């Protein structure tokens, strides 16, 4: 359950102040599937960063699963990111020197899980993305679509309730993009809340909910 009320995010650029988010009110139920759309610079990524607890709003309240997050310290926010949220980025953000397996393992390593149960979870996650045969490959030995599916396996390996994807198909061709969207929608079908930022109207059409943004506000 996501509840945003009166969220403001301002950036100081030189003398001028950019209002990246203006008075955002938004409620999303568990298992929702929302597409955030809007022109470049309208505040989509900023909204996603705040939802993902990577950034703090200047004003407003954000309750995640009933917990008021704006007053939490960094440690507690890191814990929520670790346990409740999975990120998928346009640029994949895989660690180049690590294999697919090790990349997927990272969130569990950070969570301090013991090696044995960790490996089992990673295997399941990779299998769910159809990547079992690619487990030992490094990112430069994988196609774009495979890389993004490794990133999705990584985002889901901790079994979070919320997946945030910022233009997950932006760097992919149509076929690979469709694979990735299918993978994300499959997760949503299993009950995960899915929020996707996209420029692609076709992708936006598939979401149950469209959040149209312009100049920092939801239309």
């Amino acid at each position, binding site marked *: 359950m996501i509840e945003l009320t009166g969220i403001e995010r301002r950036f100081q650029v030189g003398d001028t102040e950019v209002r990246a988010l203006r008075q955002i009110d938004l409620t999303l139920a568990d298992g929702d599937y929302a597409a955030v759309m809007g022109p470049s610079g309208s505040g989509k990524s900023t909204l996603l960063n705040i939802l993902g607890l990577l950034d703090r709003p200047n004003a407003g309240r954000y309750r995640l699963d009933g917990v008021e997050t704006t007053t939490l310290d960094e440690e507690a926010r890191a814990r929520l990111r670790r346990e409740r949220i999975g*990120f998928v980025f346009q640029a994949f953000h895989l660690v180049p020197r690590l294999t697919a397996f090790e990349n997927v393992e990272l969130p569990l390593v950070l969570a301090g899980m013991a090696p044995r149960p960790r490996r089992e979870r990673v295997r399941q996650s990779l299998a769910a993305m159809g990547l079992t045969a690619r487990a030992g490959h490094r990112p430069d030995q994988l196609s774009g679509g495979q890389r993004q599916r490794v990133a999705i396996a990584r985002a889901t390996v901790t079994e979070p309730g919320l997946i945030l994807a910022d233009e997950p198909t932006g760097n992919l061709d149509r076929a690979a993009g469709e694979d990735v969207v299918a993978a994300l929608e499959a997760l949503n079908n299993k009950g995960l809340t899915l929020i996707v930022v996209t420029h692609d109207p076709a992708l936006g059409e598939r979401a149950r909910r469209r959040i149209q943004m312009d100049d920092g506000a939801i239309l």
Partner: protein
Amino acid sequence: MRIEDTLSSAAHTLTAHATRSWLTLLAVALGSAAVVLLSSLGEGARRYVLDEFTQLGTHLLIVIPGRNETTGGPPPLLGETPRDLTLQDALALLRSPHIARIAPVAVGEAPVSAGSRSREVTILGSTSDYRAVRNLALAAGRFLPPGDPERAPPYAVIGQTLAEELFGSANPIGARIRIGDRRFRVIGLLEASGVSLGSNLADLALIPVSAAQALFDNPALFRILVQARGRSALDAAQDDILAIIRARHDGEDDVTVITQDALLGTFDRILGALTLAVAGIAAISLAVAGVLIMNVMLVSVSQRTAEVGLLKALGAREHDILGLFLSEALLLAAAGTAAGISLAYLGVALFNSQVAAFALAVPPWAPLAAATVSLGTGLIFGLLPALRAARLDPVAALAGH
């Protein structure tokens, strides 16, 4: 994050950037090897000197005429001149129950000749106990015989160099020689034993003390060597010497007693300090290695900004990131130190197997000090880059700036 995961992850990162890791490791290794090698040089020198002094004899006290101002006591009265030390002074010392042996020493230079060959050498006058007090070994013949030191027969014991100069390869034992204008018979040949406390034992002639006094026409002794009855008797022997001489010299303290231990202690301290100083200078090279570590770590942080952002997005806490980067610095320092110390021990073993005259000795504190300093610099110089990484803003870091 588990500690073993932190370490293996740090090690993985280091091996992924092999070249710069090796170079930094090399710098740390050279620095810690320098600390260990230089301190083993100093320690070797210290042991060498101590050894030399121990060869002088054991439980040794040296009585020299004149008061040493640094030993304290009231300043000498105006116009006081120290009395000479005489053979009777020396013999009187044997009254002390704490003194085992004494050896009066008279010293001078005189020409020694045999046949047509002649050589100017140090002439040392003493008694038969000189041999036991100084721990001397003979190569051939016998030493000055015991007996009344006032009426000793004109015998001489000579060193190896002098023997070769005078007699070549012929046997010198029993030969007659002249020292100054007096005749002596050679009865013994000293074993070659190098330079000891400034006197070259190979190039001298040892004659009875009374003969030396007559030869140089001087009843004054150069010094008296005293051997105490064991280590615990040293202090009592020193007190007795001062008391006996004071009684014989009209109540005046006009001699100085140097104990071998005090002498040893002084050299020990000087050389110990020198070793520390040398090791300290070597430790500076470790600090330089620390700067290298910092540089490598800063490069690493700036190259991996996006990765740090990712780790934060995946839920890493500040101290996880701090731990990762600090572990890298510490692993570099630890591996470098281990390599450097092993290298140093190898070098010491190699040196000692090749060079017989002087032995390097690694003082036990040296590897510890090297490890402490290099891990310390690793920690200190790794902290700044690690803190920088830990405090990156996740959104900016993910964007790569």
